[in-house]
């Protein structure tokens, strides 16, 4: 058993990290912190997940969120997608393993991956609306969020959602308020089978190795850790029975990266665009300086008068 974090205290405790620990801030720059926090991570072991949705409930409860009661559409996934209130969601896949002849019920807890290289933050135009702490948390700051939805387009995992109520973007905070007092995230705490564990990223990788060894001993030769390098690694990682095919887990991206479109948009285009605008302005100015104004001459007026003569 992975040793759980002790019970919380009801005495006020100073937060263990804050503004001075930011390493990225959307649409702005930060002074790099003098000392980095140890990176943390949440490890989701799909092979231990029973899909009970305790994490979903714990998330709603801790964050005071209310989701609508929906309908059944023929599957266990409820709600049917992430929403501004549902920051984490169990996605169920019935997978027939042709090699073993066994049915596998793959249940993946979807939610923010807290990428080391966060596409949402890259895409965000509002200074400080998305921040990244040196321990790996990527958080949305709702006072600063302008609700443009660029984060959604920036995210390689399709996670953030705009609220219908206040038009701001929402997603998992990794329970930043709990972490700040030394607790683990609410979903992790609730998880009955410890399919979710939480600790430093190094600890989580070690724990994942331990789990992968067990899975390999049970015939899952391709068991492995999902910590995609394309986004610099993530602070939410998965242990997968079939790490060679993450896409069978309800479309978990295989080697995700920030979309080249987003990269282009937020990278080169920005400079080229502004440069083009600048260039046009400068050219105009230069032209005017060199060629001078194009004035109507007396003669032109005369010609016009001549043309219209006798027409009054």
């Amino acid at each position, binding site marked *: 058993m992975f040793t759980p974090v002790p019970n919380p205290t009801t005495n006020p405790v100073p937060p263990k990290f804050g503004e001075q620990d930011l390493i990225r801030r959307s649409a702005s720059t930060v002074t790099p912190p003098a000392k980095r926090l140890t990176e943390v991570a949440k490890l989701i072991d799909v092979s231990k997940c029973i899909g009970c949705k305790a994490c979903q409930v714990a998330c709603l409860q801790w964050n005071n969120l209310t989701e609508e009661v929906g309908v059944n559409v023929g599957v266990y996934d409820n709600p049917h997608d992430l929403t501004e209130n549902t920051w984490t969601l169990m996605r169920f896949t019935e997978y027939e393993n042709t090699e073993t002849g066994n049915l596998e019920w793959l249940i993946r807890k979807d939610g923010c991956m807290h990428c080391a290289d966060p596409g949402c933050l890259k895409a965000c135009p509002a200074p400080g609306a998305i921040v990244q702490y040196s321990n790996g948390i990527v958080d949305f700051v709702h006072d600063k969020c302008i609700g443009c939805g660029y984060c959604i387009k920036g995210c390689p995992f399709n996670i953030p959602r705009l609220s219908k109520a206040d038009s701001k973007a929402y997603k998992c905070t990794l329970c930043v308020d709990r972490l700040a007092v030394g607790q683990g995230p609410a979903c992790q705490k609730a998880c009955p089978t410890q399919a979710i564990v939480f600790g430093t990223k190094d600890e989580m990788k070690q724990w994942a190795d331990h789990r992968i060894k067990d899975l390999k001993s049970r015939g899952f030769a391709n068991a492995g850790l999902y910590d995609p390098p394309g986004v610099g690694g993530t602070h939410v990682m998965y242990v997968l029975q079939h790490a060679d095919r993450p896409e069978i887990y309800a479309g978990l991206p295989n080697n995700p990266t920030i979309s080249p479109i987003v990269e282009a948009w937020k990278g080169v285009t920005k400079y*080229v*665009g502004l440069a083009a605008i600048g260039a046009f302005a400068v050219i105009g100015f230069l032209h005017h300086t060199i060629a001078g104004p194009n004035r109507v001459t007396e003669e032109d007026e005369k010609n016009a008068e001549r*043309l*219209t003569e006798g027409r009054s």
Partner: protein
Amino acid sequence: MSSSEVDSGDNVHPGKPVIVDRYTVGARLNHWVTAISLVLLALSGLALYSPSLYFLTALFGGGALTRVIHPWIGVVLFFSFLGLFFRFFRLNLWKKNDSVWLGRLREVLAGDESKLPEVGKYNAGQKVVFWSMSILILILIVTGLISWDEYFARYFSIEQRRMAVLVHSGAAIVAICVWIVHVYAGIWVRGTISAMTRGQVTGGWAWRHHRKWLKDLVTTKR
């Protein structure tokens, strides 16, 4: 009339100097609504486009309001420009002489119009501005709607929305450049601005820059 360069509302008043009615009140109002929308769109769009210009959101009451207002101005622009389009498109249709005119861009830029073909109500440069704006605004409204998450997110895939913002910003940059050309041309060619303020230009201006238009006007309004 089809070949005539004269629009309804154009008129010529002999005198010293000759005064020519170039744009009706409606056309001017339409233009300025479009122009103001475009400027506001450019400012708000640039604010959201580049962090270095985010301060511009202050003009709109902050980031969130900028985000709310921008697409709505876009809608205004679209319909406003649609008005301009229907007003102006006929005389902006490309003619053989336009290509000749454009081929002699050097003379144009030098202000040496004697070597150019006689120009109708719009010269080829103006036509290029008109058509590029028409196309760009169409692109902008379409991509704008696709990336307007508040209302339309659910109809499009993430990939489509991503592509839409990229195209939207690209088109916007081009549109701003075209706009710069348009505004500059208005400033450089003295006597132009009054066309959109008072609706009138001098006969000399018309003679110099849009001689065929003036001639057609004189002929038809006889």
